[in-house]
């Protein structure tokens, strides 16, 4: 892999790090009321936006904008229409909902925020601090500043204290892609920068289409030149797309279902955890089933060097339909499982996850016994970054997670993510000579809000803040060519 040098100082920090040492975070969603005031606000905000690898210095702020938000900021239509279709459409169009499985109770009409007819979401402020008090001060400060600039507060997505474990009790976020030239990672997880940032070559060796601006519309030369050599300026460079989905988790429902499936008369905690681990593909500690099929082994909590075709082609250790196996199939993809060609295909469908949990944690035992406040809302604010929403996020969700015939399965969609779909409600534990099927898997996860955001580079933020609000004389400029 030849690695291009990433202009880290122009890249918002969330792409480069998860701000792990800033254990408190919240996400504020706003609707733009007064475009001119909003641009001034963005201009004032921009110098404080964390870029590069500064390392956490007490607090961090990142900012992202939806397609509607860009239009409200005054981005001319002809530039906005050069963003990809799925970004322009947004997460809640009927077609997008079908692709993402947002049906029934998870349909956008039922969302707490981001659904049709509701306000915004135009702008997302991601706020990070070292502790709850500092976060509270940071959040108040930004809320006051935004509101005074005519931004209407839509919702604040709070997060719990940063924990490596999600609410079902499993360690999360272990397998992450890395930028080539950045932190050392196995080749399978190392991506060319263009998979995670616009303006760099991707795993096809191409530049993902990016919205371009005529030089006349950037008289101060705020934006970088288009690397394709079009002579235009690149609004996308060093930016990327940020998917936000509020995933409500029914922990009690999850463990009760698992208990029903594993118990005849008496509770069998070991059997419960074993079945749940098969649905996840890792044990609670994070140890992969592929390496330890029979019991959790904490010493393997960080183990990530395994492959499915090589170690477990038929799903006898980690079921074929397990959540982690289908969202990151490693070496098990066509054209030929177990080859470098398979791994190369997989690298075109990776996501950089940056989510955090919200709501109070609850143990399996408490969930099963109904302890804890009834109806307490908890879940995951799922955040992920990718340069191509259709080929990365939507593809992983639709073609892998929600696909009932993924990897030769019969009627098995993702046991964690697909509860609101009408098909694929089976989970199969492969075994020899005969598999075991769990049927009628209910919904454990329900989307409660979400949107597709653009996370611009710092220069792009400055340019957006400098828009005049009158449509500049641009010509449509989708970048569809690419030197190979």
């Amino acid at each position, binding site marked *: 892999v030849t690695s291009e040098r990433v202009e880290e100082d122009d890249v918002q920090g969330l792409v480069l790090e998860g701000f792990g040492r800033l254990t408190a975070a919240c996400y504020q969603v706003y609707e733009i009321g007064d475009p001119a005031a909003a641009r001034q606000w963005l201009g004032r905000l921009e110098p404080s936006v964390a870029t590069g690898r500064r390392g956490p210095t007490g607090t961090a702020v990142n900012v992202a904008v939806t397609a509607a938000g860009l239009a409200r900021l005054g981005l001319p239509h002809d530039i906005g229409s050069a963003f990809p279709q799925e970004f322009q459409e947004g997460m809640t169009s009927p*077609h997008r909902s079908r692709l993402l499985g947002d049906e029934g109770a998870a349909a956008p009409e039922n969302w707490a925020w981001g659904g049709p007819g509701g306000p915004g979401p135009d702008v997302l402020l991601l706020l990070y601090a070292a502790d709850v008090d500092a976060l509270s001060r940071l959040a108040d400060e930004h809320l006051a500043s935004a509101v005074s600039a005519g931004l209407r507060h839509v919702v604040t997505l709070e997060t719990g204290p940063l924990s490596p474990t999600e609410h079902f009790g499993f360690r999360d976020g272990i397998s992450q892609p890395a930028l080539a030239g950045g932190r050392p990672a196995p080749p399978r997880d190392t991506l060319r920068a263009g998979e995670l940032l616009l303006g760099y070559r991707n795993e*096809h060796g*191409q530049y993902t289409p990016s919205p371009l601006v005529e030089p006349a519309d950037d008289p101060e030369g705020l934006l970088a030149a288009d690397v394709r050599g079009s002579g235009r300026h690149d609004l996308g460079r060093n930016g990327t797309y940020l998917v936000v989905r509020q995933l409500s988790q029914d922990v009690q429902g999850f463990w009760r279902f698992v208990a029903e499936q594993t118990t005849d008369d008496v509770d069998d905690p070991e059997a419960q955890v074993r079945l749940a681990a098969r649905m996840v593909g890792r044990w609670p500690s994070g140890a992969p089933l592929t390496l330890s099929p029979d019991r959790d082994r904490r010493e393997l909590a960080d183990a990530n060097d395994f492959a499915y075709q090589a170690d477990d082609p038929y799903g006898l250790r980690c079921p074929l339909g397990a959540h982690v196996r289908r969202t990151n199939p490693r070496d098990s993809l*066509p054209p030929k499982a177990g080859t470098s060609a398979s791994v190369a295909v997989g690298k075109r469908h990776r996501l950089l996850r940056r989510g955090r949990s919200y709501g109070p944690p609850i143990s399996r035992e408490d969930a099963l016994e109904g302890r804890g406040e009834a109806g307490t809302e908890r879940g995951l604010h799922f955040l992920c970054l990718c340069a191509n929403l259709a080929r990365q996020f939507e593809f992983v969700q639709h073609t892998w997670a929600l696909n009932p015939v993924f990897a030769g399965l*019969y009627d098995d969609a993702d046991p964690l993510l697909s509860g609101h779909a009408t098909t694929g409600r089976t989970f199969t534990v492969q075994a020899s000579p*005969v598999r075991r*099927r769990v049927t009628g898997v209910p919904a454990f996860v329900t989307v409660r809000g979400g949107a597709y955001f653009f996370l611009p580079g710092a220069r792009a933020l400055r340019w957006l803040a400098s828009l005049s609000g009158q449509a500049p004389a641009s010509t449509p400029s989708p970048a569809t060519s690419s030197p190979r």
Partner: protein
Amino acid sequence: MPHQVATTVCAPVLADRVGHLRDVLAEMGADPAGNDVLPFGALTGVHFARLVLVDDGTPVLVLTLDLDAPERFRLRQLVSLAGPGLDRLLGNCADYPAAGRRSDRERLRYLRGHRAASAVFYLHAMGRTVEQVRDEARLRSRVEDFLDRSYVGLRDRSPTEVRDAVRSYVRGERSLSWAMSAPPRPALHFRLREMAHLVTVPLLLLVLLPAVLPLLLVWLLALRLHERTDAAPEVAPDPGRLRALGDAEDFGPQNAFTSLAAIKPGRFWAVTSAMSVLFADYAARHVFTRGSLGGLTTVHFARFLRLGPGNRMLFTSYYDGSLESYNNDFVDQVAWVLNTVFGQQDGYPRTRWLVLDGAHDEIAFKAFIRGHQVATQVWWSAYPELPAVTVDANARLRAGLSAALTSGQTDAWLRLL
């Protein structure tokens, strides 16, 4: 068992009836299975059906049917079941019998008279009838349920014992006992014809080689010249059109795709297109016949059709999953196939030696596919809930009930379940 036939009817539409025809198509599209015009759900032996109004100057209504042979019988059934509906539909087309002269005979004559031969016809598995697909889906569902019920008793048995248990269950169920024998093969005359084609084409090429070879070299040189010098324009699909196309997709596991593109101008590309059609026809009939299109397992049926006026190529297919995954499969797995069969079309990304580059240019290829896609106003599937990989697995399940299996084959067979 009958083989499968691609029937296409191309009916020129009367210019002043286009709007009315659109209304009829919209009515049908709302309920393809049960609409009053042409209720596809009432027909037997039809795998897939579609209606496309090609309207770029000279409007043509295209009806495609993927049928179990014999075609004559299927068309007769269509006419007798939906005569007045056909009148509503085709009454908007040129040459359709006038109101007073409409009889089933005349309708049949019209359909047969307006058939157009496919240049290439691909199907997932030759010889598998609609009835077989549906029956084997039922078999699969029943066997899965049987294993669920019998799990506790079977889990400690040997693979052979589990298979025997399934076999005795199927044998004992009167409604499934048909599955204990292999499905019949296509008729002898069809198999002989295909075998003759399989052998004759390479033989003919071999005999003509001394004459063909110099021409081929000239063609290769011309190909490289054209590939290097012909313009490969950038296509930027219109967002509104993309939105409308997407709004009709992904309601179930299957989707229908239709595209229309001109062959690049000039004699050279016309000749190359003819060669590509010959190649693709041969490959579809003799190479890609076992449920896989060069590794791709998501396409049920597809065809190319030349459409006048002008040298245009209509392509139709039924595939599983989203267009994004369909395209990714092409780019990642079978780019050379796509280059060979689409490479002569206007706007296709630049190829090298016909098979190289082209679809490997992900961005330009996806833009080409969406850019030339046209709306499919009506389409219908006889088994809309079944992805092609499931249809295949069901057939293997059935085949393994009666075949003699080694222990390795028994293990593989059990992994289907």
